[in-house]
């Protein structure tokens, strides 16, 4: 990293695309819905169910309204990118595959301290859990590494391995910058801040101050009803999209501070029911036994 110019943000993505494409992955584009993590992408959630092999890699924009800092915090964003790899069934050399991908983006494991540190994963809203690690590079968490054990309340048969790279963190590390907004985006004069700083400022204001809460409550309820409607029509994929929608609206309501602690659990429970219902319908539609 010392002598050559480090990879730009988009080069990191391209390198990872090439790397995983060479290893037989389907390279997908981001899902066109707002979601809190790449795990929500149907290519992760729904594809983790059932017996069919599935290998895919994609970038997913993640929205976490409560993490917004009006562009003032160098490390926190309400909108950022994850690089997501799903390998099902988990291959025996998955750790080595992952480590080689780090080498591909310019991290030399003889120069840096790469470690697998226990971190179990659980998503109450997806009714999912898995075991794995957070991967540390010189003390920084750069990837979440999970073996899915359950999704939507169903045992994963077989188990999928999920790799979630924090792209901004990795890029800040590789480019040695202290603020996300200083990241070199394209290697040709455009920074991350040029693209996203205004977005962060405006979206933070909207998330925290402006978003009309009545509309949001209404959206939430409509998503719930629509999800149930889809489930009745035995259409798990659109049902699951409504679950994603409800989940994101719930996150927005949280950011607006209008959901009390008491109500929080019940809202999360409703989202979980939608997600689980969609997963169940997906299993049934495909004729997979629980």
């Amino acid at each position, binding site marked *: 990293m010392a002598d050559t110019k480090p990879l730009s943000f988009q080069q990191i993505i391209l390198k990872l695309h090439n790397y995983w494409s060479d290893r037989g992955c389907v390279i997908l584009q981001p899902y066109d819905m707002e979601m809190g993590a790449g795990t929500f992408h149907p290519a992760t959630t729904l594809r983790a169910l059932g017996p069919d092999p599935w290998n895919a890699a994609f970038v997913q924009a993640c929205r976490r309204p409560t993490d917004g800092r009006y562009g003032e915090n*160098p*490390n926190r964003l309400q909108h950022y990118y994850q690089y997501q790899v799903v390998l099902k*069934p988990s291959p025996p050399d998955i750790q080595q595959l992952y480590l080689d991908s780090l080498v591909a983006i310019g991290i030399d494991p*003889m120069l840096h*301290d790469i470690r697998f540190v*226990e971190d179990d994963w659980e998503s109450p809203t997806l009714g999912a859990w898995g075991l794995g690690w957070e991967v540390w*590079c010189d*003390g920084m968490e750069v990837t979440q590494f999970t073996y899915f054990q359950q999704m939507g309340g169903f045992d994963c048969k077989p188990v999928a391995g999920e790799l979630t790279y924090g792209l901004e963190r990795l890029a800040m590390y590789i480019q040695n910058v202290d603020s996300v907004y200083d990241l070199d985006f394209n290697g040709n004069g455009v920074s991350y801040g040029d693209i996203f700083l205004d977005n962060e400022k405006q979206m933070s204001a909207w998330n925290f101050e402006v978003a009309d809460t009545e509309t949001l409550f209404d959206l939430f309820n409509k998503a719930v009803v629509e999800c149930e409607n889809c489930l009745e029509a035995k259409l798990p994929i659109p049902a699951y999209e409504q679950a994603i929608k409800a989940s994101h609206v719930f996150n927005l309501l949280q950011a607006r501070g209008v959901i009390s602690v008491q109500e929080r659990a019940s809202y999360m429970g409703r989202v979980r029911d939608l997600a689980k219902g969609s997963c169940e319908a997906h299993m049934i539609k495909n004729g997979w036994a629980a």
Partner: protein
Amino acid sequence: MTDFLLELLSEEIPARMQAKARADLQRLFTEQMTAAGLKAGAITVWSTPRRLALIARGLPAQTEAVSEEAKGPPEAAPDQAVEGFCRKNEVTRDQLEVRDVKGRPTYFAVINKPGRDTQDVLAEAIPAIIRAFPWPKSMRWGDASASTESLRWVRPLSGIVAIFGDDLVPCEIDGMTSAYDTVGHRFHHDGMITIGNADDYVEKLRACHVIVDHEERQNIIRDGAAKAASDAGLELVEDEGLVIENAGLTEWPVPLLGAFDPAFLDVPEEVIQLTARVNQKYFVCKYPPNAQDGGGAPPSAVPAATSPSLRDREEKLAPYFVCTANIDASDGGKAIVAGNEKVLAARLSDAKFFWELDQKTALEDHAKKLSNIVFHEKLGTVADKVERVAKLAEWLASLEGTGLLRANPEQTKQAARLCKADLVTEMVGEFPELQGLMGGYYAEKEELPVEVSQAIRDHYKPVGQGDDVPTDPVTVWVSLADKLDTLACFFAIDEKPTGSKDPFALRRAGIANLSLWHDNKLRGSHLKVLRQAIAIAAEQMPTLKERLENLSKAAGVSENLLKRAIDREAEELWGFLVDRLKVQQREAGVRHDLIDAVFALGGEDDLVRLLARVKALQAFVETTDGENLLAGYKRASNILKKEGAGAVRVERSRDTDEGRHGLSTSLETNGEGLKPLSYTPEKAEKTLIDALDAAQPQVTAAIEAEQFEQAMTALAALRGPIDQFFEDVTVNDDDGAKREARLALLARFRNAVHQVADFSKIEG
């Protein structure tokens, strides 16, 4: 005799699970060997993040041959039965012996089991050990996970090395077979390593940058971290937990010193330490004594030497840390240190941001947000709890009486109102374990009275036995009010601990409450305080009040419903606390039966006095006088029990209100048996009467003066007379008048003893 090596290779095993995994491996192996009749010499177990290893020395090559006998059917039994027996025991008919069993010729099979090769025993034992391994959490993986029945391990199991002597122990589990091959360090060594036997295992791994002995790695980290610090003129803040954790995260540990911007030292050092330790697993460093400007930091970098602090910072944190890398990096660790410094700086700047942001809001305003946090669905929000605690703390601080701590009620109320405010601060949101401490710091920054900031900081104390017990009056009352409210409220909604379940940690709150009273020698009626705590809760929460009133109704009470319910709840809670007292005092060697004996008197609800009585009693019953008096008491008590009538008369006064509240030292029963005798008493009878006449007023006076040893001495004077009485006098005399008078005398004796304690509760 042959040595055995087993290595179970795995993807990274969580550090915190490794110690138990080693113990489990040793236990399971030993169980397998014992079941096969094999006894190993020394067994060693090691762990790294990627492997569990076991070496068993000196195993025999074979198990011993065993001869067993099985009794079969009688000789006269049908052929079918005999053949079945042969099949079952794998013998032929001509191998059977006939022996006489109670006159009946019966078949016997003698089964000679030859010794088995240990090799074979091991080959069976290894899969059994793997399948039985009790990981706290386990998982499935890979192709095999298409079935939920596939092998489970803590993380994917990736290899098995099993060598007996120089021979491979061939075994297979879920498609994985044992081998001589293992892997070295993940980055320092490519490819496989072939192990020859138990003796070359450690050194072959070491050559490939794996130190398999966890204790050796711990030593390297402990010594290396200390040296890295001292080389820079610093002192490492020792942390054995961190040593063990880092040893569990590395196969080739390399401690490295890094630094952070001294400007971060504005943040309380507990925060820095937690950030470094919990999030990053770093050691922190301090300046050695009398070397405040040492360590290479410019003098200006040492901040806040003059700023007043809650804590006496004798040893100041230095802006350095030690991280433990898992690699001998090609640049000597420069890049690793730079990376770790960056991560810590980002963490600390978050912490500094929280620290500064939190201070922009006064604690009083933070506290308002507590109304958004539910304390318990039946007990309102945390703000409601705080309101109750404030009322109770103010009331406690205003209590008049000797043996109580004088605290400013206003300060006490203020501290109580603010004590939970830090729960909604960003910092405590990030580090819940800093609750209290942060509130204390923020209160200090607001320049609130030191009594108030101290109380906010320490009101959770004591947390568990052995923790410091607060002594500052304001802190004591706030801490007590917090715990008493928790106890009173959860008891009032019937959420009491049962068996091993105590979800609201009421036992701990109970013990903390007792420690506060005990260590501060607080005097006064516990029941009164408990009643107040319940009353405050009932006043605040109409549903709770209604619940209590309904309880009274259900118990058939018709008036003063709330008061009667509060009385009952307080009694129950006091009983619970006395039970906790037995547990708490066990370590101090105080006998639980003696606590029962004093508690059973009723009316004693002054903790300090109760314990003083118990201790005096314990000293007494362990003397010969005490033992004999106890024997005399039991004899008298048995006779009275048999005769029934006397007992009823004597017990009567204990159920009246006077008997229950205040101190039952006057014991109206004193005079009851004193009807003039219609006959001339026998000598021993007269002696006992005289002794009681003399002792009773002495016991009463001594108890009133809280001179419990004196009360015991006075009781001891009854020992001789009661022994003599039983020796010489027949209680169950044919003359009804004598009999009645003597029973009354025994009752009087028992009452005298009961002034001190209910001896019937004393064991032995």
